[in-house]
């Protein structure tokens, strides 16, 4: 990755001998971004599974019979609100206000919990009426895709709580700022995936 251009009088170097500084965390943001991209591939595989299997009802219920769009709209609103409240937390961090960051993180966490609560209610309802993951290939792929997203949100909330403890213990040190920005990317990324889920699974499912 060396962008050095060779000059005629310089001896040819095939490897780097001189020590250079690696400031802590200077490549964390890019590394985390690449992790998110690999996570994107996981979701792409699950979307592909759903796209292939989503029409196999095995004489069972179809999306039209199962999905309650009002509930999904509410769920989408929860995630969208949590996105902007996380944005407010980042803005507070840029102003150096640790209490403000914690307040907005807490509000974000509550919206995240509301999202999870609604999703678990939906899953519980589906399983109760006999439309569990074992009913058909459509429902297996549906539960896998939406459940994986829900699992990501769950871990996001665990991370968020951990971060709030780290903030109260150490304040807005460089490491904590970095963590806030990484979780910001993770959280907004989950919202991006949810755009795919509500469009492709729920809205297209009801159209089908």
């Amino acid at each position, binding site marked *: *990755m*060396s*962008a*050095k251009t060779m000059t005629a009088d310089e001896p040819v170097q095939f490897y780097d001998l001189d020590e*250079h*500084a690696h*400031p802590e*965390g*200077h*490549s*964390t*943001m*890019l590394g985390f*971004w*690449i992790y998110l*991209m690999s996570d*994107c*591939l996981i979701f*792409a*595989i699950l*979307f*592909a599974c759903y*796209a*292939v*299997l989503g*029409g*196999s009802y*095995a004489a069972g219920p179809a999306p039209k019979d199962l999905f309650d*769009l*009002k509930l*999904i*709209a509410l769920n*989408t609103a929860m995630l*969208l609100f949590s*996105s*902007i409240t996380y*944005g*407010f937390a*980042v*803005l507070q961090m*840029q102003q150096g206000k640790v209490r403000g960051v914690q307040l907005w993180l807490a509000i974000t966490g509550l919206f995240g919990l509301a999202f999870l609560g609604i999703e678990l209610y939906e899953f519980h309802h589906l399983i109760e009426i006999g439309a569990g993951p074992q009913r058909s*290939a459509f429902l297996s792929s549906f539960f896998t895709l939406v459940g994986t997203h829900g699992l990501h949100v769950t871990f996001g909330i665990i991370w968020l709580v951990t971060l709030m403890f780290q903030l109260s213990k150490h304040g807005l040190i460089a490491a904590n*700022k*970095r963590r806030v*920005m990484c979780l910001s*990317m993770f959280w*907004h*990324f989950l*919202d*991006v995936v949810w*755009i*795919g889920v*509500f*469009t*492709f699974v729920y*809205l*297209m499912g*009801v*159209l*089908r």
Partner: protein
Amino acid sequence: MSADPAHNVSGAHGHDEIEMPHASMRDYVIGFVLSVILTAIPFWLVMTMPLSAGATGAIIMGFAVVQIVVHMVFFLHMTPKAEGGWSLTSLVFTIIVVVIMLAGSLWVMHHLNTNMMPMPHEPTSQVTGQVP
């Protein structure tokens, strides 16, 4: 990596601070308002169905793509210059892989279904993978 010229330029302000994207209230508010509009219209279209199913499907897919771009720009602060261009490079690579995977899976499985399934000819070809 240390000889990366783009890194030296962007890291010029602030030596101990880690380079982070700068967020502004304006960005978040614009992103949020656009997202609300781009979410509400597809839900409204599907819930009230003023158009045909095909047109509605095409429109909501278009809205989803636009909303993903909005999120990338206003919430994830994606710019061509972020991280010396490597963020965008990895994003473009990921998009290429995702498109190949999605289009390829659908294409291959569609052909398998139409060629392999001894099913009666029906206009609805949504009988993927069913055990007869």
